[in-house]
């Protein structure tokens, strides 16, 4: 029997609702979005609204959710997404979590998916 695919810890519906309500904060590392794609906060938010929660391993081209991992400080879990050709032809690698205390989405990291990995996926 096939095991059930993992799902993000923070349901995408909740994540997208926070984005629509403009309850989003950015970690300084997310500034790579500008270096890698020329994007500002609006483009990042538009891109996040396009994410799906299907497991990336099942279909690396169409599915975005990759894994949930414990942050190194071991107090918070972070959802990791890898999205190929998600917006404007870009491949995105992003880390997100919801700060429960402030009820805000935090974009912890937002950068281009590694090129070597892309080549592996396209094979």
């Amino acid at each position, binding site marked *: 029997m096939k095991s059930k695919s993992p799902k993000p810890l923070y349901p995408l519906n909740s994540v997208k609702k926070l984005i629509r309500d*403009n309850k*989003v*904060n*950015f*970690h*300084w590392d*997310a*500034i790579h979005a*500008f*270096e*890698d*794609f*020329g*994007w*500002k*906060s*609006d483009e990042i*938010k538009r891109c996040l609204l396009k994410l799906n929660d299907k497991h990336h391993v099942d279909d690396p081209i169409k599915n975005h959710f990759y894994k949930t991992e414990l*942050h190194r*400080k071991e*107090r*918070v879990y972070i959802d990791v997404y890898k999205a190929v050709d998600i917006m*404007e*032809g*870009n491949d995105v690698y992003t880390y997100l*979590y919801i*700060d*429960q*205390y*402030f009820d805000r989405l*935090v974009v912890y990291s937002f950068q*281009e998916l590694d*090129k070597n990995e892309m080549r592996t996926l396209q094979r």
Partner: protein
Amino acid sequence: MKCALCNGRLINKFESIEFNSKSIGKMLVPELKFTECQDCKDKIFTPEEFDKAIDFIDKKEKEAISNLPIKDFITANEAAEMLGITKQAFSKNYKIKRGLIYSVKIGGKKYYHKKSVELFKEKNNGKFLISRQELYINYGEEIVRKVQKTIYTKTLIVGTPKTSDISIESNVPSSGWRFLHQTGKKGLKNAYH
């Protein structure tokens, strides 16, 4: 207020932050409001402050690009040809529109930096470090060293190098070099008179 990542104390700050730009290297982004954890030093920004930082970086990068020698820029047709795409596809490309190929506007027409086009073809991102040497390569080692010293002085004061002065300084008579330690117009004026 506690940090979600480490439970450290969060404090509101209003200060400059160092950023390592792909185009111009280390720079200071001034006067940003953010929340910092006293323990893990993680910095969190609202979308408005995040965009403010990006606008500043973008402006400084554009200033540096506009100081690159004009001979290194090519037309959109030539750039499209280099990339092996039509001019239409070139002008519609989102990444190019977003500035991933260095460009300048002269007389309402856009020109693209040749090296940046080559890099874009190879890596899908035409950003590269516009080094000081790249701008002053023709002026000899000693001059470069002196100019770099001037830029460094300015960097400490205003946060990023202002390369626009340098093309003028390259014409400074040799006797004027002793004034190069002075920054801005004052140094230039003294060098000439």
